[in-house]
């Protein structure tokens, strides 16, 4: 069990080596004399946990460093992960040159703009009440 645990946790240590910088650039697509490469930002994460409780005989055997065919006791483990990819630009390559065109997420901007508008309206109303509400009394 110790060895399995070490292997699992050492796998985490190699996280940097396993991350691939090319993952953020898509495959080039050529059409009508121009080549387009999609570019995205990427984020991913994961977590896991594992546990093993030994029975008395297994603990004794491990203490005596005797090999056991089967591990007795209860084991449990679990894990999960998630990933997010968001397009941010396209690289356009033409015979004239290379340029980067930004991709704007209009839906997110509209939602954030709406929230900001509501926030500003609230503070404006608060300001007007504080300034003119007192005078009216």
């Amino acid at each position, binding site marked *: *069990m*110790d060895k399995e*645990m*070490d292997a*699992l*946790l050492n796998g*985490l*240590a190699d*996280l*940097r080596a396993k*991350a691939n*910088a*090319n*993952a*953020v*650039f898509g495959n*080039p697509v050529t059409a009508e004399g121009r*080549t387009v*490469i999609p*570019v*995205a*930002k*990427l*984020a*991913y*994460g*994961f*977590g*896991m*946990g*594992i*546990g*093993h*409780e*030994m029975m008395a005989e297994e*603990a004794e055997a*491990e*203490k005596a460093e005797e090999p056991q065919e089967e591990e007795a006791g209860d084991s449990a483990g679990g894990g999960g992960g998630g990933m997010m990819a968001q397009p*941010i*630009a396209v*690289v356009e*390559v*033409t015979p004239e040159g*290379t*340029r*980067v065109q*930004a*991709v*704007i997420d209009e839906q*997110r*901007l509209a939602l*954030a703009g709406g929230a*900001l508008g509501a*926030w*500003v309206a609230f*503070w404006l109303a608060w*300001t007007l009440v*504080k*300034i003119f509400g*007192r005078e009216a009394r």
Partner: protein
Amino acid sequence: MSERAIQGRHPVVSEVVEGEPIRVEGRELVPLVRMTTRMQRRALVGTKRVTGQGWGAVRLRPIAVLERSEEGERRIPIRDKTAQALSGFLLAAFIIPLLLAVAVRLARKD
């Protein structure tokens, strides 16, 4: 009962890495990516129980493309305009209430 704890806490590491070159139209495009990683692992090895847990997170953000051609090398920045606009909104959301609070204070002084 003796227990041995193995801990590995790796700080946030952020560095710019070069990807593999992409060859298009006689040019070589080299992706430049900011890679940020963070991880933590912990194990408890005892005589009666063994437990382990860990998590990790990786963020890859493209920052530029290096264009290598016969004319030379050129760095073309990649900007996340959506993130820039959202940062501007967030800044405005902090500054506007502060300005309005100052306006209220000035109005009360008069």
